[in-house]
């Protein structure tokens, strides 16, 4: 018998966890450490005219203040370099960082962050992605649609022409905040030899190191990003947030600098699950054969792309559902708004699409008076089928799963929809 496989083993760090000895982000300290607070925009859309930090700098105990002017290369992002470390000339959502303060105590840092004066001209904001797609909508960036994908398979017009019934529906999903119980925590130390060490609560330390290298214009050989135990992530700790601000403050003061997000910042200045608007249109014959499906997905990116493109591509390849459909057209748009930035969250775009296509599948089955489970069994993909993206399936087991589900749940396939 294997000592590992099939065995129920305790977590390797279980004893540390239950005795309170696991070190999480905020638990890490350094001697001489300063406390950081970030001044956030607090307004959704504006032209940023001036950031006056003089009153903050005059407060006893304030050791350093940084703004966009201090950032060597003020743009980062996983697929699009559209997000500034600190807002430069424009505010695009309430959580935009405007300045960072390092002080001898958290109270002083907080007081100083509030003392920073922001001069701005407020712009009309857009919070609805469908509105943001209109030509006369307020422009969050130069173009409100940073990315757009289309999947075409078969002949959609022919498919709809062959259908006995066409069912059209609109599904929407909402913002979801990850609410990991541990807030983001970051500690940066730029040491006298010119090496930067950053402890940060991220799921992707190497991505953060690479982003830090770009925005600080530092070689990666001088940057170490270390991750302590992470108190929950769920995708919410998937990207750089304010590590560069904390690092710049350490470079400016020569002291270690630590920042811990408040719960309020977790809700207003970190990523969320993208809300999707999804239009589904399906053509079906009375015998349950699906002839065509057209899908349009609009993902609310919020102020910056972040993981918006990657989550959307994942939603795109799943959007038609695991059903045999000869004619498919899927369009997917990522749209900037002045909302919170959408990011990675468990399922990475797929839960939104899954919610829509499974609810829609029920509707289609009901429209032709067929039991939804029977309808799924008739149409589910099997080995050898080709998906709209061109992928040919091997070892598909959905039919077996559906059969098992029916028997386990007591679903009566023959007798109506079982409700």
């Amino acid at each position, binding site marked *: 018998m294997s000592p590992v496989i099939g065995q*129920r083993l*305790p*977590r390797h*760090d*279980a*004893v*540390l*966890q*239950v*005795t*309170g*000895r*696991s*070190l*999480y982000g*905020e*638990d890490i300290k350094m001697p001489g450490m300063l406390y950081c607070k970030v001044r956030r925009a607090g307004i959704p859309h504006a032209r940023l005219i001036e950031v006056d930090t003089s009153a903050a700098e005059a407060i006893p105990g304030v050791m350093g203040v940084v703004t966009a002017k201090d950032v060597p290369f003020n743009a980062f992002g996983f697929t699009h370099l559209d997000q500034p470390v600190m807002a430069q000339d424009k505010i695009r959502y309430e959580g935009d960082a405007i300045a960072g303060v390092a002080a001898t105590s958290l*109270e*002083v840092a907080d*007081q100083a962050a509030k003392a920073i004066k922001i001069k701005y001209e407020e712009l009309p904001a857009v919070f609805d992605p469908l509105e943001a797609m209109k030509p006369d909508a307020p422009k969050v960036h130069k173009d409100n649609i940073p990315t757009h994908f289309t999947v075409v398979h078969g002949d959609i017009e022919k498919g709809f022409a062959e259908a006995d019934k066409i069912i059209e529906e609109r599904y929407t999903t909402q913002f979801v905040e*990850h*609410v*990991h*119980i*541990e*807030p983001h925590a970051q500690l940066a130390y730029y040491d006298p030899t010119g090496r930067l060490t950053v402890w940060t609560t991220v799921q992707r330390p190497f991505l953060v190191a690479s982003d830090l290298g770009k925005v600080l214009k530092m070689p990666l050989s001088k940057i170490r990003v270390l991750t302590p*135990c*992470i*108190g*929950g*992530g*769920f995708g919410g700790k998937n990207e750089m947030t304010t590590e560069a601000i904390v690092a710049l403050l350490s470079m400016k003061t020569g002291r270690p600098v630590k920042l*811990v997000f*408040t*719960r309020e910042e977790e809700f207003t200045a970190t990523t969320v699950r993208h809300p999707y608007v999804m239009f589904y249109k399906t053509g079906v014959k009375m015998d349950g054969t699906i002839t065509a499906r057209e899908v349009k997905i609009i993902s609310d990116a919020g102020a910056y792309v972040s993981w918006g493109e990657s989550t959307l591509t994942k939603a795109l390849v799943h959007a038609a559902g695991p059903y045999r459909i000869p004619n498919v057209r899927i369009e997917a748009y990522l749209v900037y708004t002045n909302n919170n930035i959408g990011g990675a969250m468990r399922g990475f775009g797929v839960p939104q699409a899954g919610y829509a296509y499974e609810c829609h599948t029920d509707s289609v089955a009901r429209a032709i008076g067929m039991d939804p489970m029977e309808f799924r069994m008739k149409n589910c993909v099997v080995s050898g089928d080709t998906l709209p993206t061109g992928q040919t399936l091997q070892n598909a087991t959905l039919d077996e799963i559906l059969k098992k589900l029916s028997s386990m749940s007591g679903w009566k396939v023959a007798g109506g929809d079982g409700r």
Partner: protein
Amino acid sequence: MTEASTHHIRFTLNGSEVSADVKANDTLLNVLREQLGYTGTKRGCETGECGACTVLVDGKAVNACLILAPKVDGRAIQTIEGLAKGAELHPLQKAFIEEGALQCGFCGPGMLMSAKALLDEIPNPTEDQVRRGISGNICRCTGYAKIVKAIMKASRQMARVGGEGA
């Protein structure tokens, strides 16, 4: 900025006498974590919602983020660091490990202290009582089922050894 007044307080922390100079607006959580170095007690929300900072004050589970430090003068505080007796884990800690009741572990210290307060008061709780006992503690990883199972298991084991281990 007006300076808050300073208070000299003494209390027992996991059985040992400690003293600290605290400001009137310091929370017990801050004094434990920042002044005394007891980082086992976690800070999650600072508004009494998540329960990650749960400690026992005179045996009762409280949110350390909601109690001002001067208020604990003369009282007995128990934190996660005092739950085990040296290397000997408390039955609750053992059961949490055996049942895989923690994933990221961040809610663990607070969850365990709430569970201890519960079992000290109700040694043989029903599942419903366990769920009520930890209703002030949020866990985003586990779905609670294994936590509930672990607490029930610990209560049975403690009953078997005659309540020893409290």
